[in-house]
Structure formats: C-alpha cells, structure tokens
C-alpha cells in the first residue's frame, strides 16, 4: 500500500526527518509512537503533501505510484485521507457545505447526528470547536471522503471520556468500511497515539517508535506500548536498540 524509502524532510528550515524507511501493507494498521517534537506529525504531513514540509531526499510510493511530489488533492483522490492534529479555522465556510462537496450529496450530512455533529453543520469549520468536536468533525469529513488509506494524528487527544468511545467507533467504521463479518480491514492506516487508547477500538498490526528523525524500533503495538509506559521513551529505545 505505502512504501517510504530514505525519506528526509525539512520544516521551517530545519531537517526534521532524517532517513525514514517504512512499509505498510494493504489492510494493515500501523502505529507511530514517539516523544513530542520527534517528527510524527511531520511524517504524516509529508505523506499527505502539505506545503510546509519539504522532501529533500528519498521517496514515497503509494500503490506503486511515486507520489513524493504530487499535489495534495491528487493524493486525496487516490484515496489518502488525513485527520489533522490541529486543523485550521475556515471562517465563513460551513461544515455542511464542505461535507456536501466532499460526498457529492447529502448522504453524510444526513448522518451528522451519528457523530453528534448535527448542531455543527451550520457552523464555520473548526471555529470555536472544542478538542473533541474537532475530532468528530474530522471523522465526519473523512467518512464523506471514504479514503483507502487514513492518516490519524492523535485521534483521541483532547477528547473527553464520554466521546472517546464514539471516536473509537467511528474510526473503526472507517477502517472496516464495506467489510462484512470477519473479513478484516479494507482500509489501511497509520495512527499516531500517545495513550494507545484508540488501539482498544481498532487493533493494530505493527508499531514504530520515531525519535530524532529516525525510526528507532518496531514491534507488536502492545509490547511497545507496555515498554514505553513502564520505562519511558528514552530507556525503551535504548533497551530495544541493544536487542536489535
């Protein structure tokens, strides 16, 4: 599905990613851990093609196509979707109008109540939204978009306990789109999480720790999470480096 080779990325004139190698298989959910400022969001932004990241070396191949320099909207139309950690306010543009344009009809705006966003359809996108409202709005938009590969940047951060189950459920529906019974996920994902809470809802196949612009180690998500929780990033990485 996605293959990243020796990716170097600059943001704000600083090299943030220094040679990332990563492969995600069809239907697989991968998790990205790493301390604050390690470059997790930057990696997702580079995959999406956002302008503030500059790829200086390496490439990103999606379904066999090199997308390293492809415009954002073409990537979106190829099936890549993203939930941003901190999306911008769009004053004057109503959530309803955007969702309608994305889904090309009213099928998803009519379902806004499932996301507890029905009272937000007439509001300007993200303006004055709380943490949880932003996540639910992002999920509503993604649901309209029906991506084949989703990038989720801290889907549970800022979400209160009451909403977390809803967010988890909607992320799950996104990944198991059109899937019946136990056929497994049809949509692949790369998920950033600090708490791992979201993993209770979607499960994950593989996890990576990003630090200093490199992927330091990988393993089973539950194992890595346990190590990080018990020992913190620094020790966890050191220990695993030794083992590797």
């Amino acid at each position, binding site marked *: 599905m996605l293959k990243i080779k020796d990716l170097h990325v600059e943001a704000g004139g600083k090299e943030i990613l220094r040679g990332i190698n990563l492969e995600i298989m069809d239907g697989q959910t991968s998790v990205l851990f790493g301390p604050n400022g390690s470059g997790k969001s930057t990696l997702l932004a580079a995959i999406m093609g956002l302008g*503030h990241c500059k790829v200086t070396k390496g490439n990103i191949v999606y379904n066999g196509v090199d997308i390293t320099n492809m*415009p954002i909207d073409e990537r979106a139309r190829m099936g890549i979707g993203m939930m941003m950690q901190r999306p*911008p306010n769009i004053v*004057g543009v109503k959530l309803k*109008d*955007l969702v309608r*344009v994305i889904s090309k009809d009213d099928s998803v705006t009519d379902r806004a109540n499932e996301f507890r966003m029905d009272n937000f359809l007439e509001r300007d996108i993200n303006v004055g939204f709380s943490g949880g409202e932003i996540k639910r709005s992002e999920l509503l*938009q993604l649901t309209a*978009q029906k991506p084949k590969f989703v990038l989720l940047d801290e889907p549970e951060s800022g979400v209160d306990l009451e909403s977390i189950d809803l967010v988890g459920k909607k992320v799950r529906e996104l990944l198991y789109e059109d899937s019946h019974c136990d056929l497994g996920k049809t949509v692949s994902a790369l998920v950033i999480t600090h708490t791992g809470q979201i993993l209770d809802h979607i499960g994950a196949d593989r996890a990576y720790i990003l630090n200093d612009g490199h992927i330091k180690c990988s393993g089973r998500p539950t194992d890595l999470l346990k190590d990080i929780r018990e020992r913190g990033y620094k020790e966890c990485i050191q220990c695993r480096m030794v083992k590797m």
Partner: protein
Amino acid sequence: MQNGKDVKESLNKKANYGPDVNLDDYKVGTYTPEITNDIDDVSDDVKKRMVNVGVMPCKTSRSGTIFFIDNGPSYVSSESKDLELLPIREAAKKYDLSEYLWKAVDPGKDKYTSKTYLEDSDGYFIRVKAGKHIKTPVQTCMLLNRNKQMQNLHNIIIVEENASLEVITGCTTGKHAHESLHVGVSETYVKDGGSLKFSMIHNWSQGTHVRPRSGCIVGRNAKFVNNYIILNKVGSVQSYPATYLNGEGASAKYSSICLGHEGSDIDMGCLVELNAPGTSAEIISRSITLGGRMVARGRLVGRAPGVKAHLECRSLVLNDAGLTLAVPELESTVADVEMTHEAAVGKIARDQVEYLMMRGLTEDEAVGMIVRGFLEGGISGLPPELKKDIDDAIAKANLGS
C-alpha cells in the same frame, strides 16, 4: 442653516476622500425618461441588469417598485396601502417635507451634494405608516442610461414609529453608458421603535464614477441595518454614509462586500455616531483586492454612556498590484463605552487551502470556497439571488470555481 448661496460655493468643493471628478465633464441627464407602463415591458438587456442588482422585473414578492432612468421616474407601483412610494418631486407637492429635506445630509458638504441641491433633483420617497410592517421588500432601481451624463438623485425613506420595512436598491448602467457619473443623496429616518433593512447593490461599468451621499437618523429603540455590495468593475466609488443614533437604545449594523478589480478605485467608509445612552453599532467590511485601489474606512464615535460598538475590516489581497488600506477609527467623549475594532489585511491562508485540498477539492475549488465564505460571512441574511451573484463574480474574476 444653509442657504442657496452657501451651497453654490460648495460646487467646487472636493470630497474628503477618493479621486476628484470634474462635474463639467458630464451633461445633466434627462428628467423625462421613457415611461414604463408595465415593469415586464422593459428590454431583456435592462431586465438582466436589474436582476443582477437584486431587482425583480415583476410584482410578486415585492411590496412596491420604483424605477428611475437617468434623472426621472420611469415606473412606480405600490402594492400596499400602508406604504407611500412616489417620486420625491411629487411628494414635495403633496406634503411639507421641510423636516426631512437636507436634514440628514448637509447640502454644502461637497460638490456632489451641492449639485444635487441646486438641481433640486428627483428621487424616490418611501414612507411606511406608523405601526405598519411591510412584509416583502420595496425595490428601487436606478439606471444610468446615457454615456457622459450625470445622474443626480435625492431619495428619502421614512419609517414611522414602530413600523418596519425592507428596501432593496439596485443601481446599474445601460449598455453604452460606460463613462458616466452617478450622484445619489439619500436621507433616511427611522423613528422610535422602527426598523429598516436597506440593501444596496451596485453593478456599474468600468468607467462609471459613483458618489453616494447618505445620512440616516435613528430614533429610540429603532434599528437600522445597511448592506452594500459591489462585485463588478467600476471607475471609482467614494462613499462615507453617516448614521446618527440619536434615540436611546437605537442600533445600526453596516455590512459591505467589495471586490476591487484592476482599474477600480473603491473608497468605502462608514460613520456611526452613538449619541444616546445604550445605543449600539456594528460595522463589518469584507473586501478583496484584485489589483485595484481598495480602501475600507470605519469610524465609530461614542458620545453617551452604555454605548457598545464594534468595527471589523477584513481584506484579502490576491495579487501584488493595487493597494489595500484599512482605516478603523474609534472616538469617545465619555468613559462608560465599550468600543472595539479589528482589522486584517492579508493573503488567503495557505493552510486553509491545503486543508480543503486534503479533502479532494482542487486548488481552484478550495480558493473559491474560502473566498465565497469570506465574502458571504460579512452579511447575515443575504438574499439567495445575491449569493448567486457572488458565485458568478468569483467565477468571472477567476478566483477559483
């Protein structure tokens, strides 16, 4: 008190803002235009121009229609007995208008008011009887039909005590009248408990010069809402309407949407004086500069306790040509006021465009959506016809689709 001699001296007085216009370059337009018996009879070309400025060429969904061509009335029809709608020269024969004529606008202000005073110009007179609510809008249309001519109009609107009214006024030019001058003096009176929503839509030619001169006096607990929209090319517009909130609890809201095309010079101001306790005002201006000169001025003056007012000037600059200037001003002579302003001038934020592209919109679609939202966000309750005009203008100016 003004007398004719003083006003005559003002014939050479330049306006405070905007490029000067030499009145001698224009012939005074005709006072006896062709009479239209049925609004449906006007030519298709004129009809199209009317619709573009929010004027419906039919009687349905309007309480009244008055149509001026150049300096004279061409068509008048009123559908409500609670409403008086007639040319002001006729109204002046019927009534003593001395308490309304030149009481909200000073005739000696500049050469444009002076000319209108000395011409004793015609225009529309609209009055709603006390306590009456006119359900659908009254529409007025001003067509500047001849090239190199000057249109001078003097309009009066009176909303009597506890009455309410909505007026849509559209101003436009005829097919060949590219280099003409429009001067319109409007005096508006919203009496105690009254309410007026007034929307003005301009659609001129690229060489037209436009000098509206407006004053509005608002009484106790009365409400005045004023919208102004200009989306197409124009030679120059310079306007600085003034509203005087003289009655306790009166309020005013001004919104304007302007597109400053290359070659256009738009200088839009707005003054609200909050002269009575508990009055409130809001001025919102949204403009886009596409290579023209775009000035947005706003001035709030607080003169009584408990006054609340806010001024917001936002401008998007879409290319490096042209000039954008935002001039927000607040003045107060008492302590107990709450007056604020914000002004922002800048380009479209890249992260917003990218956010929409992330959802699959092309760059043009994303820019179009943001620009549309930016403009429409300035006016609440925008009629659907005008939303369509905004969409068309955005498409025509190549601001995305």
